[in-house]
Each structure stands twice: as C-alpha cells, then as structure tokens.
C-alpha cells in the first residue's frame, strides 16, 4: 500500500468516526430527554434566577429540536456543561480529573490481557494436548465463566490474607496512587479479555503450526526458537490485534465494577454516582466522551493493523 493510500484511509476512517460520535451524541440526547421528570425540579432548592438561567442556557422552554441544536452546538464547542449536583464543577473538569485514572487502569489491563493472551495461547498451542495445555485451558475456562466482581472480591480477600501473613502491606487492598495500587485491579480487569485472547491465540496458532511455510522452515533446519518467534508468533498474532479494538472498549467501560470494588477514583465510578443522583450533564458528557474515546481507539487499532499486515485490503 502506498503512503497516500494510507492517508486517504485514515482520513476516511476519521470522517466515519465523526459521524459515529454524532450518532452516539444523538442517541444519548434522546435517551436522556426521555427520562421522566424535570431536571430542574429536584430536591435541592433552586432559586428562580438559577432556573431561568439554566432554562435559557439549554433552551428548556423551547421545543426538542431547538434543544437538540443547542446541545450539538455546545458539544462542538467542547462545552459539556456544569454538574447539577457538584457545585462549581464543570463536566470537563470531572473528566479531566478522573479519566486519566480510568485510562491508566485500562491501558495496564489491556497490556496485561494482550501479553498474557498471546503468551498463554502460544504455549497451549505448542504443548497441545499435554499438561501445560490442560492447565492453562482450565484456567481460561474459569476466567471466562467467573464474573469479574467475584474475581475482584476474591482477589481483595487474598490480598488481605497475604498482608496479614507478612505483617506489612505487601500490596494495598484498595485505593489509588502508586503503581502498587494499580497492579491487582488491572489484572482483575484484564482477566476476562485475557482468557478470550488466549483461546483466540490458541486456535490461530494451531492453524499456523500445521501450515506449509512452518514445515518448510523446519525442513530447512531453522532453529525452533527462530521458527517460533519469526514465523509462528508473528502470523498468529494478527487475529489478536483485530479484536484488540473491541477489547479496549470492553475493558474501559467494564472498569466500573473494579473501580467500585477497589475504591478507585475513576470516571466509571463517577458515572455510576451521577446516574444515582440523576446528574444530567455529567451522565451525558461522560457517555459521549467515552463513546468518542472508543471510536478513536478502534480507528487507531485499524490503522495499526494496516501497518502491520500489508495484505489487509482497505476499502
């Protein structure tokens, strides 16, 4: 693929992405518009002046279409509004403060899942129908069928016991701040995806192991380690990269159970809190932001895939 083709492809995907984000914003707007009740008539006493100001800002006394246009206009300008329940806090501030936490946790989890999945999957394929295969596949089945909140709770319990055993805090049980805080939550978060990637890697690796070019390499006398690294791993890894985009999506939005259990101040926890308090602007802003982030990540993975595998034909 030539360089200009690549740029056209990236541009095309970006335009598609913008339309997708618009769709997400629209769906969010109408879903929230359907929520019964008046957002300005909650338990907190709002003065007439505040109500009038908010009504003017969001056009709440005007028809839905006008409100929608105002909403889109604000969105384009990057104005996600002010929180309804936290005084003097813009949604942008909330995202800026708490998204990095979720992102770091998510990135660690994705790295953990991808590295683990590739490694374990390759191992099971090489040791097919021998004990490492059985042991790993048993763990994979556990990882797929045990819900993440149970894994989170059990790992927290284990941490408590380990800390008790050594008499000091080996790894913190909850909270956020240092690298040590991140390790266990990231592992728990990435576990399900790792199990899934392991299965994928195993079947893709099994296909490669019995392919012609591997047999040729063996016949030529290429050392096994080199066959493994150069021929098998590189080819088998491709399907894993394709599902990495959706996996990132699953991990970042799936983060809020782990954030709740481990008391991590991430955006997911804020979203759940905002839903409980019916904080309209925070709910809408967070959803659109997450959606845009996921769309962007999928585009990045697609482009990466184009670089790695020149065979991929792009529309």
């Amino acid at each position, binding site marked *: 693929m030539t360089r200009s083709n690549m740029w056209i492809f990236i541009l095309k995907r970006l335009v598609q992405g913008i339309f997708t984000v618009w769709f997400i914003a629209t769906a969010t707007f109408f879903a929230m518009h*359907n*929520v019964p009740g008046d957002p300005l008539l909650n338990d907190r006493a709002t003065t007439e002046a505040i109500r009038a100001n908010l009504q003017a800002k969001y056009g709440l006394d005007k028809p839905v279409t006008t409100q929608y246009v105002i909403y889109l206009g604000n969105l384009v300008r990057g104005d996600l509004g002010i929180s309804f329940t936290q005084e003097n806090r813009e949604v942008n501030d909330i995202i800026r403060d708490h998204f990095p936490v979720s992102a770091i946790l998510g990135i660690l989890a994705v790295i953990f899942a991808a590295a683990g999945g590739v490694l374990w999957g390759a191992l099971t394929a090489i040791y097919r129908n021998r004990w490492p295969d059985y042991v790993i596949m048993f763990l994979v089945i556990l990882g797929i*069928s045990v819900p993440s*909140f149970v894994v989170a709770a059990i790992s927290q*319990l284990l941490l408590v016991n380990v800390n008790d055993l050594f008499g000091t805090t080996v790894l913190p049980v909850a909270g956020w701040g240092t690298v040590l805080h991140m390790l266990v939550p990231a592992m728990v978060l990435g576990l399900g995806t790792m199990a899934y990637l392991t299965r994928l890697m195993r079947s893709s690796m099994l296909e490669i192991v019995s392919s012609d070019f591997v047999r040729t390499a063996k016949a030529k006398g290429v050392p096994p380690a080199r066959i493994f690294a150069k021929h098998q791993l590189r080819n088998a890894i491709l399907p894993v990269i394709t599902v990495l985009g959706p996996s990132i999506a699953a991990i970042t*939005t799936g983060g809020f159970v782990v954030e*709740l259990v481990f008391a991590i101040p991430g955006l997911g926890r804020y979203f*759940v809190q905002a*839903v409980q308090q019916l904080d309209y602007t925070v709910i809408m802003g967070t959803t659109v932001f997450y959606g845009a982030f996921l769309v962007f990540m999928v585009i990045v993975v697609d482009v990466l895939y184009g670089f790695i595998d020149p065979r991929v034909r792009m529309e």
Partner: protein
Amino acid sequence: MTDLSLADFQPLEPGQEIHGISRPSQSYWQDAWARLKVNKRALVSLYLVIGLLLFTIAGPWVWTVDPAQQDLDQVSRPPGADRNALIVADYAPWQTEGLSFGEGLKVVGDPTTQAVKLKWDAIPGANGHRIYRNIFPIGPERSYGIPRAEFFDNRVVTFEDRLDLKALTYYYVLVPLGPRGELLDNYEVIEVDVHRVTTIVEAVDRGLIEESANLQIGDEINLDWHPFGTDYLGRDLLARLMAGARVSLFIGIGAPFLFVLFGVFYGSIAGFVGGRVDQVMMRFADFVVALPFLLFMILFKISFGIGPGESGVFPMLVALVVLMWPATSRLVRGQILQIREQGYIHASQLLGAPTRYLILRHMIPNTLGVVLVTITFAIPSAIFTEAFLSFIGMGVAPPTPSWGSMSNEGIKTMLTTPHELIFPALFISITVLAFNLLGDGLRDALDARMRNQE
C-alpha cells in the same frame, strides 16, 4: 477397504439395479446430533443446561418455600448447620441475689439465645465497667466488638444480654473504666457458646409445632430446614436461587432469542436486497455497535424511568435487544450473500422457484445452524450483563432476586458467611460455562467451515 474377491466382479443381469444407497440418508440435523453426541463436553453441558431449566421451571413446585419469607431465627445460616432448638420456659427476670463471686468474669447458668447472664468481680478503684460483645476473638489490635452496656458504678457486677442473640460463639469483653470514664487496659474476656432455645408459645406462633403437640420443657424441636442456608434477612437461599434463576434466565435466554430474531430479519433483508439499501442498513448497524454498551444499558434504564423498588427486568430486556442485534445481522447478511451465489440457488431459480420459496426453503434453513450457535454464545454474555448491572445496583432492583443482585448482597458479608456469595456466583459461573461449552460443541457439530481445530 473391503476385501474384494472374484464374486464381486460378476456381469450384471439386465434390469438389475446398478447404483444404490446402502445407508439410510441422514438429514442435516440428524448428522449434527450424531456429531454432538460423541462430543463429551458438549453433551455434559447440554445435560447441565437441561438441569438448570428444570431447576428454574420445575424447582418452585418441588421446593415450595416462599423466597420472600423471612426466618429471623436463622439469619445468614450456612447450609447444613444444625437446626435444633431446645424448648425452655418463658422468660423470667433474672434474680441476682445469692450469687457467689470471686472467680472473675463468668457465665451464670446456661447461655441461650433467650439470655446470656454474666457476673464478674469489681476491680477496686475502678469507676465502673463497659461490656462488649464480638463474634471474633479480640486479636492484637483489640477490636472489642459492639458495646453492650456501660455502668458508672463499681457495685454493678452482673449483666444480662438479651439483644438479638444467635446460636454462635460470642466473645464478651469486660473493660474496667478509669476515673474519667476512660477504658483501662486490664480487660477480661470470656468465650461463650450460645445454644438455641425457644419457648412453646413462640414455636406455636411461628408454626413450627402444632398447638396440640404434647411438648415439655427440655424437649428438642426442629426449625425450618434450609438446604442452601439463608441470606442476611433469613430468607431461604434455595428458594431465592430458584426465583433468581427465573429472572436471570428470562433475561439471559429471552434477550438473545429476541435480538437474534431481529438480527436475522434485518440481516437477511440487507443481504437479499443488497445495493444501496444494504449499505445504509449496515452503516446504521455500525453506528449501533459503536455505542458504549454498558453505559447505554444504564442510560436506557433511567430513560425508562425505573424508580426505586421496581424490578426493571423488562427495560433490561429491551435495552439488551436494542444494543446487541447488529452482530447477528452482520453475520446473517454475510451468510445470505454467500448462499445467494451458490450453485443450488441458481439451479433452483432456473427450475422456476419463486423468491419466497428460495428464502424460506433454502436461505433461512441454511443460516439456521449459524444462528443457533450465535444464540448459544449470546446467552452467557446476556447473563453476565444482567449480573454485572445488578451487582453495581443498576439492574434488577431488590426485593426481586436475581443471581447478580444476590451476589451483590452476598459480597457484603463475604468474610463471615461466604455461602451467601458462593451460591449465586456458582450458579452464574456454571450456567455461563455450560452455555459456552455447548456453543463450542454446536459450532463443531453444525458447521464444518466454522469448526475450530480442537
């Protein structure tokens, strides 16, 4: 290879049948069933699924305990715990005269769920005592437990505890108080095994015995039996698991059926019509895929206006259908596009088959295998979604039980009564596992092209 002999090469008589099918012909589904039967894992999973369905549908007829019924005498009972109660006389105030002292902190009489009576020796110079109760030993960090009583009078040397006693081992701690009411260091602790007792009036009241039953003080009666134990409100866990299975499996199986149905409909139209319509329809499906799934599940829930105390089963079903159909539609569209180009479709067309016949007779039956596999794999993810949302309190709301909300309740008492978490979590895991393995088996059996290399 069969052995050939000269007898196999005889010239034919005229009119004799030359070709013949020597084995009975097998339909697609018979063939698939035969292949599924030899797959042990898939077969075991199939039995598990059938067992789960029986548990859900027929269970409540066999085990007729009301899942909302509270048994406050047996709160958070682990399964298999002993459930006898001794009949005792009605409660009478404790007469403390004539007690002998000089042995430190001691239990007077038999400690029962009716009352635990304690006596101790006053420490000279102390300003009184405070009494704590704990269900754990004190340990080095000196967690005394909940304070039960405080006496700013050193002459009070007896205490009767009657607050919410269970048949457990309690640790009572007696801490002397200093002149300003501060806790002194020289505490005393005593371990008390409390026995469960009940009075005749109480037992009749709760329907444990008939009024006419001839029981005396000192007899033993049986309390209600809870094979899986009870939860934190004393509700029977087995009955709740069955009721929860109805909710979890209703969402877990209902939603996949509905969205697969819609996906087949949508995808086959897109695939069959093709062209512009196909492009627009598939672009819309791409949009829906891009919606952040769990966030929108929650968004739909509040969009429906589910207030506190409402179960929210139906909105969850709708939200799952709305968000999960695109994958199926894409799959079915691909299948239809493939089948449309096959030789037998052209042949059928040439023989004059109408479009309706083509779709109903050839296209849909040929996608059915793939669709069945999709449903089987969609069920675990729907069950997970329900459990996940209920766990964070955004799904099925109490008092409606579901496996997810039961796990949510159980996780709070994970340390003391782990069975309340273990059972619902186990049911989720087994169900998800069974459907996953069954899906693997079905995929291998139904579709040779999709067969993985196991």
